[in-house]
């Protein structure tokens, strides 16, 4: 039952005008995206079949459909690398193209940061005197407002949703020990609080439910949005909203690679019941404990450290990979996972080259020591924010990387290539190459369609409902042989 884990992330970026008193983030986001996209902004997003309010538990709640950003005239573009770049809730949002594995996802996730940086460069010349825009790949303003970094995984539709909830929840609660991006203090909808000096994640504070459809308030650990953008009979797109935005490549690789393996094991019904007694409370408690030592309570009464649950998931994953799925990439996921868990077991602070929460903590601690600062000093808050600045010359993660203080898994060249070129092994290839080759002949596009305007009376909608079709192997020859969109469409129909 386990199917390939095609994966993509959607990142809402923080956007700010430091010396612009009436800064409008919606307009600024649109401005930023349009400056980057240029003439590609003419192509519309094809909203047909989008149903974000359909719930995986099987009913359609009666609610008003939100006004689509397209109707508001806001930027919404598809890029030649197959990504979607658009305005969502007053943030620029970058959705990576579909990737066939975690390593490709890391490359494309980082490419998103480069797209944002290039967008800033593009608007710089157009800004009024003295004004500027800053952009952050993080999840909170520290004042009770949060924005998301979502992961999407392709899952077999036949997998029982209740099983996904049962087995994924304890995993999401405990993976925070390596996926967290770190945060000073704590917060709630009421604003900032001081429950802890420093915690593992940006997002945990904003989660109040175990399962649900909401994404902007009363956020649930498991989101039930059922919008597969693919054949709904065969596929589910599991939409995960509980993670942090990561800058560290190893952290991103593990976040996605481990979750993908856990989902495969869920599809094959291989995991035992590790249910927590109170998952939401445990999510908070795990995040609030940077020592990673405090225990959580399972439904069966046992108290275990989050690390122990992670060892259990890892043990099952090692067996699973060995017996079913020993690709070099899966082997690497399991090896790095084991190495990170061993590091946390020994001393979590040893992982400052791999994990964002540790890298950031180490930087903050060094500053505190050097300048005798209290945790509440605004300079520390500034450092914590600027860690996520996407400008390579100013972002503190990037300064750490430039000085060789964090581990890389990609090369800068790979990232630059991914800004222009789609992955070769998913339908993103077809989408990206069409956008690059026939931009003037495309009226609209989406994850599962391209609508060509070849000058005929009617438009021609080419569905792309299979995430693993439309790859380079499938369509390169036809693309190269088709000078025009017209001949491409004719070739597809042949």
């Amino acid at each position, binding site marked *: 039952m386990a199917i390939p884990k095609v994966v993509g992330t959607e990142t809402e970026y923080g956007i700010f005008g430091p010396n612009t008193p009436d800064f409008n983030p919606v307009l600024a986001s649109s401005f930023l995206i349009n400056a980057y996209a240029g003439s590609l902004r003419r192509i519309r997003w094809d909203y047909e079949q989008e149903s974000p309010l359909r719930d995986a538990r099987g009913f359609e709640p009666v609610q008003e459909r939100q006004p689509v950003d397209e109707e508001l005239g806001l930027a919404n573009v598809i890029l030649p690398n197959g990504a979607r770049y658009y305005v969502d809730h*007053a943030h620029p949002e970058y959705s990576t193209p579909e990737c066939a594995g975690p390593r490709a996802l890391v490359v494309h996730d980082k490419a998103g940061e480069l797209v944002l940086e290039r967008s800033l460069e593009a608007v710089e010349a157009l800004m009024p005197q003295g004004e500027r825009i800053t952009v952050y790949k993080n999840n909170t303003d520290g004042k009770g407002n949060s924005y998301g970094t979502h992961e999407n995984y392709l899952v077999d539709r036949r997998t029982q949703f209740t099983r996904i909830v049962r087995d994924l929840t304890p995993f999401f609660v405990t993976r925070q020990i390596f996926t967290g991006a770190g945060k000073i203090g704590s917060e709630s909808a009421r604003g900032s609080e001081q429950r802890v000096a420093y915690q593992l994640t940006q997002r945990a504070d904003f989660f109040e439910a175990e399962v649900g459809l909401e994404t*902007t308030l009363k956020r649930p650990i498991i989101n039930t949005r059922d919008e597969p953008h693919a054949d709904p009979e065969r596929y589910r797109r599991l939409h995960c909203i509980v993670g942090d935005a990561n800058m560290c490549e190893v952290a991103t690789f593990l976040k996605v690679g481990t979750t993908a393996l856990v989902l495969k094991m869920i599809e094959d019904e291989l995991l035992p019941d590790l249910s927590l007694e109170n998952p939401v409370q445990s999510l908070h408690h795990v995040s609030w404990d940077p020592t990673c030592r405090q225990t959580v309570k399972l439904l069966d009464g046992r108290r275990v450290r989050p690390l122990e649950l992670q060892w259990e998931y890892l043990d099952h994953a090692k067996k699973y990979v060995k017996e079913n799925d020993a690709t070099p990439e899966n082997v690497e996921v399991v090896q790095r996972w084991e190495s990170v868990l061993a590091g946390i077991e020994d001393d*979590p602070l040893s992982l400052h080259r791999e994990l964002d929460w540790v890298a950031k*903590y180490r930087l903050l601690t060094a500053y505190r020591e050097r300048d005798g600062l209290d945790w509440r000093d605004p300079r520390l808050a500034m450092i914590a924010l600027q860690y996520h600045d996407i400008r390579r010359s100013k972002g503190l993660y990037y300064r750490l990387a430039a000085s060789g203080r964090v581990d890389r898994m990609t090369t800068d060249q790979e990232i630059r290539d991914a800004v222009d070129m789609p992955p070769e092994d998913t339908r993103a290839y077809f989408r990206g190459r069409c956008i690059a080759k026939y931009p003037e002949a495309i009226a609209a596009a989406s994850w599962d369609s391209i609508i060509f305007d070849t000058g005929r009376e009617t438009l021609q909608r080419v569905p792309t409902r299979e995430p693993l079709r439309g790859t380079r192997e499938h369509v390169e020859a036809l693309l190269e042989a088709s000078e025009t969109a017209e001949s491409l469409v004719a070739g597809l129909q042949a």
Partner: protein
Amino acid sequence: MPQEQEQKRAQRRGDEAGGSADADTAKASAKGQELTEEMDEILDEIDSVLEQNAEEFVKSYVQKGGE
């Protein structure tokens, strides 16, 4: 019994790791000194790129909630 010991060990490690806001033992200071020396270069660099007026900047950084 062993559980209590475990918890006490965990507590001490928690303090060493700086998990609480006011853990200022001599041991923590010494460790901090080492860390600062190692990080000197990068801290200097960060000094030069960090946004000026941290208090103002951080105070005015407000976002609309997203997903």
